[in-house]
């Protein structure tokens, strides 16, 4: 009997992250990093502290942002873990813990922050 791989857990997270990154990533970066700072299509008040605070005071946007961050992190962690192996750094328990552990930690922080934004 061959041992069953637990890869499906991280692979699903990786896949979901990949889909989000592919569908939304480009526009997200474009808006936040280029359009808003350059004022293209957005006024100077765009992404102001108050408007963001009120936007992310609602559970749905806050949770959405946290989920996006979390999935991006897992997507990154998964590929980085495997690519390090490809580049000659052997896959090990420690490496696995480092990659997926930081993604999990980051996700926890994101969820916590989302909660704080909603509650406070």
């Amino acid at each position, binding site marked *: 009997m061959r041992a069953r791989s637990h890869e499906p857990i991280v692979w699903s997270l990786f896949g979901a*992250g*990949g*889909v989000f*990154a*592919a*569908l*939304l*990533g*480009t*526009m*997200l*970066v*474009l*808006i*936040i*990093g*280029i359009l*808003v*700072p350059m004022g293209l*299509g*957005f006024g100077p008040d*765009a*992404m*102001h*502290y108050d*408007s*963001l*605070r009120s*936007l*992310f005071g609602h559970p749905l*946007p806050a949770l959405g*942002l*946290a989920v*996006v*961050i*979390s999935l*991006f*992190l897992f*997507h*990154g*962690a*998964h*590929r*980085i873990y*495997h*690519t390090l192996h*490809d580049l*000659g750094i052997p896959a090990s328990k420690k490496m696995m813990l480092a990659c997926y552990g930081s*993604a999990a930690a*980051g996700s926890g*922080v*994101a969820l916590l*922050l*989302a909660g*704080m*934004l909603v509650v*406070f």
Partner: protein
Amino acid sequence: MTPAPKTYVRPMNRWWMRHPAYRRYLLREGTSVMVAAYALFLLAGMVCLVLGETAFNLWRGFLQSPVSVIFHLAALAAFAFHAWTWFKVMPLTTPPMRFRGRPVPDRMIFRAALWAWGIASLVLLVLAMRFL
């Protein structure tokens, strides 16, 4: 059995130098570093938002800096390349589909994915213009 013959095993060092497809593959995998970095950048924004207006304005102010523009251009390239390659291999991962009895060709799936990309981007843009 007769003793196994002596064989020579070639090393794998710098294997990516052997074929351009390998380098494209590593580049594709490499986009994940930018994806993760961008997640951390957004996370930093969240932290700042929770900490209060002063902290947030620092983050917001950073967006105006040339460093940020360079970072975002790099991220933009990475996300776009990621999206393109992700959609390219998508037909390999989707279960077999048929349309009017014929298998759906890969390029149709790819095109559909590009459309989804466009629509999702547009929706995001409209929402952003409305709410930010």
